[in-house]
């Protein structure tokens, strides 16, 4: 028998080789998929915008400030506006992922009309002026409104959302 014409041994070697190629390609595809879909979606800007809209709805109805707008303070604000800053028990979060600051300014002069309302983790505010990765997201927006006496106000709402572990890498 001629050893060189016996192809059985050659086929078995090629079969192993073929599976090795298969696993290399499959591994590469899995790795690429993991890299792409492993990146989280960052929804914090939307979340901060929704928070801002909820606060605006709480403060102003029908183009005018609500009746007890001047009785809101840091202690009762969340309860009156039906908001909660509690977060899920993950990533060592301790309900410190949000911060809001509401300024009430007189439209004509820009002076403060009353004490601002703040709530949440005040340490998040310092990141609003910084740029970089893995920082909290800040959204600051204003709106014009009146009170019952036709006095004009500008309400500035700053909403900050942290949650970097789930939204940024």
């Amino acid at each position, binding site marked *: 028998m001629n050893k060189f014409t016996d192809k059985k041994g050659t086929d078995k070697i090629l079969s192993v080789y073929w599976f090795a190629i298969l696993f290399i390609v499959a591994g590469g595809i899995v790795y690429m998929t993991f890299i792409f879909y492993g*990146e989280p979606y*960052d929804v914090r800007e939307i979340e901060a915008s929704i928070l801002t809209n909820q606060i605006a709805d709480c403060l102003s109805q029908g*183009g005018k400030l609500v009746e007890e707008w001047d009785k809101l303070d840091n202690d009762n604000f969340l309860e009156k506006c039906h908001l909660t800053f509690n977060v899920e028990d993950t990533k060592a979060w301790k309900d410190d992922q949000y911060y809001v600051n509401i300024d009430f300014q007189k439209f004509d002069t820009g002076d403060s009309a009353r004490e601002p309302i703040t709530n949440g983790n005040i340490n998040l505010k310092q990141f609003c002026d910084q740029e970089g990765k893995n920082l909290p997201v800040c959204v600051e927006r*204003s*709106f*014009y*409104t009146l009170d019952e006496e036709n006095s004009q106000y500008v309400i500035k709402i700053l909403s900050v959302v942290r949650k970097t572990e789930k939204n940024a890498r």
Partner: protein
Amino acid sequence: MLDKKAQIGETMTWVVATIIIIVILVIAIVVVSSSPFKGGKKIESKNTKTDLLVTKSFLGYLLRKDSSGARVFEQLKDKKTYLDDPVNGGELEKSNIDLAKKIFPVLYKEEYSERFFLGINSEWCGWDKYNQTSSGACDRSRPFEGIDRKSLTTSYVRISYDRIKLKDRGNKDDNTILELILNKPTKIS
């Protein structure tokens, strides 16, 4: 001995195929790992035609009473549009115009451009609000304040109040719309 060529040829085919496969895989992995795909996928919240805070501001503006005790909204309703009165129509008190200029371009200068439209849009004159085209009658329309509606960019926020009963408008009121439109800045590519 004479059959060695075919066996060696088959092996060499696989070697070359392996090298090509590995090169393509490495290129694909490098591309996926590069910046367009990494760094997080951010979802922005600016792709809407409405804005709650602008709506609240517009409502507050319309409800404000001036020194005479009349609300801006009531004064708007008393005005003839430019279509009804090409000579004197389309005018609004300067104080109300100034107030609008202090509110909308100032409060929302970061999200929108300074160009805005405040006026009456009447569908009866043939304005196609979906395709943003106008018939011949609307070509002469003019807002109370701001830019010509036809010059708006394709991206904007629009707050409108339908069926505004304008004074002396009769049956034409059914299609009358009071609008505030804020233009979003045109993206430079």
